């Protein structure tokens, strides 16, 4: 049957994504609690196999990956406290579904970095594509360049900090969490958001449906200063705060168990 696999092997793999016989790379160097390997010439599965071996099997807590060369889906689903450094640019879906790691990316990333992150820190030294931090539930995601469209779409928690500009539909349907945008924001900022807050230092092209300017209080100042201090981002600029106007969704009709999701 097309698209199905089997215990003995793969019956159909037109896109060449499946690597049932991928072998562990031999160029892994270990020094104490640190490990490193060069990903040039390795497949996605080989890179992830090496990462998992070092982190889960060998107890290495600090891994450096050289030359990721924009390959997709690297370091996805790592559920352990550790440090991972990418020297170069991963591709799409990097660090998705992680719970715990502190990741530094000395490069840029493609779409959907840190998607569904539960906890941890992902720091990107350059820019990122669209859907950055989609549906993150916790942790801090810092992008030091510009990002594409729909940053933090469906965000459910955590903090996204962008030092540059963000594109259209940033914060679309975000439900909790914070976004701190140091540059300009594209059209439809915070469209249909349920809750959370978006701070923008630059210009906002337009607000989305039910996104309104919010009232600033001391907790906003404390949050921003704390995040900038922790991540060594220098002095924060002045921000304007945007929140949900609570006119779009029917908040009064929520069940008690759901109510906690929308109350400040």
């Amino acid at each position: 049957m097309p698209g199905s696999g089997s215990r003995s092997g793969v019956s159909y793999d037109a896109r060449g994504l499946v690597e049932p016989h991928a072998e562990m790379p031999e160029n892994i160097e270990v020094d104490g609690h640190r490990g490193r390997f060069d990903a040039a010439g390795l497949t996605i599965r080989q890179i992830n196999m090496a990462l998992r071996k070092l982190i889960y099997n060998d107890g290495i807590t600090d891994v450096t990956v050289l030359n990721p060369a924009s390959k997709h889906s690297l370091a996805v689903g790592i559920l352990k406290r550790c440090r991972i450094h990418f020297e170069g640019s991963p591709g799409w879906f990097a660090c998705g579904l992680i719970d715990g790691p502190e990741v530094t990316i000395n490069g840029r990333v493609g779409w959907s970095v840190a998607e569904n992150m539960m906890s941890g820190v992902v720091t990107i030294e350059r820019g990122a594509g669209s859907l950055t931090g989609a549906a993150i539930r916790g942790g801090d995601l810092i992008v030091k360049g510009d990002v594409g469209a729909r940053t933090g779409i469906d965000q459910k928690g955590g903090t996204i900090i962008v030092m540059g500009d963000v594109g259209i539909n940033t914060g679309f349907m975000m439900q909790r969490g914070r976004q701190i945008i140091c540059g300009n924001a594209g059209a439809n900022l915070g469209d249909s958001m349920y809750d959370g807050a978006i701070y923008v230092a630059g210009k906002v092209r337009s607000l989305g449906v039910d996104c309104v300017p919010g009232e600033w209080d001391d907790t906003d100042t404390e949050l921003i200063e704390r995040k900038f201090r922790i991540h060594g981002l220098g002095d924060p600029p002045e921000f304007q705060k945007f929140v949900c106007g609570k006119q779009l969704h029917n908040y009064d009709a929520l069940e008690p168990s759901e109510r906690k999701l929308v109350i400040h």
Partner: protein
Amino acid sequence: MCGIAGVIHRDGTADIGAELTAMLQSMKHRGPDSTGYAVYGPADDLVVIRFVLAEPNKSTGFGMEERLERNRAEVESRLAKIGAEVATITSDTGYAFRATIRYGGDLKALADYLEDVPGCEVLSLGSSLEIIKDLGDAETVSGQYRLGSFRGTHGIGHVRMATESEVDLASAHPYWAYPFADVAVVHNGQLTNYHQWRRRLEQHGHRFQSECDSEIIAVYLAEYMARGLSLETAMKHSLDDLDGVFTYVCVTGNELGIAKDEMAAKPLVLFESDPLVAVATEEVAIRSVVKREVETRDPYEREVLVWQV
């Protein structure tokens, strides 16, 4: 889900066949069903025609060899009748052909006359444009048509995952902007007002080779350029006229342009340097030709950019 790519060298010719093949092969996961190229070699006095006489998966079987030979002879005969002098005519596959001709007449009349031959579809016409497309991944198609040695200034390519129409050449990109010479488009997305624009353009006398929404873009742009608009202006108009989610790349004899819809819903990554501009659905494609860490960016919504050779 499909993948698109484009390169333009602003400092002379390069191995664009090999470059596009590397880019498209790196995006094979976005579509293994068919691969297509629109490449521009050095222009000369000859008109280049790329045409097919049968779909690849219908090119063999009882009597097909004789039928293809008969129809090829008919094409040559018609070229002579319409006043074209054939310089060369070759085939890499038995069903897809490349001809160079001396011809100063109306290209629309030429294309229409040839396409009256049973099974004939003109893939491209122009002084330097050549559209090559076939079933399979980039390395398969490149090997089949010997594109590894193709040198030129710019080109675009497409890998297709068939989602809404057949796995065949008619549905494969790039699309030539019939009947306008040297204009081609690759597209990733869906146009929701396709039928409206198709009817409108058909009323202006255009015909379409496929049922694919992407073909609309090529003809739309060429129609506006024929009215005197620049490629960039025509592409900016398209952002208001075309509904849906799309990113497309258009090429002419000396330009390459990109456009993103107002939602920026479809991906595109851009690398720009003085000698080279490369665009692709995914950065991994750019890394296949620029093998070092480079500064790239995602163009924003409603962004139109055009580069000249």
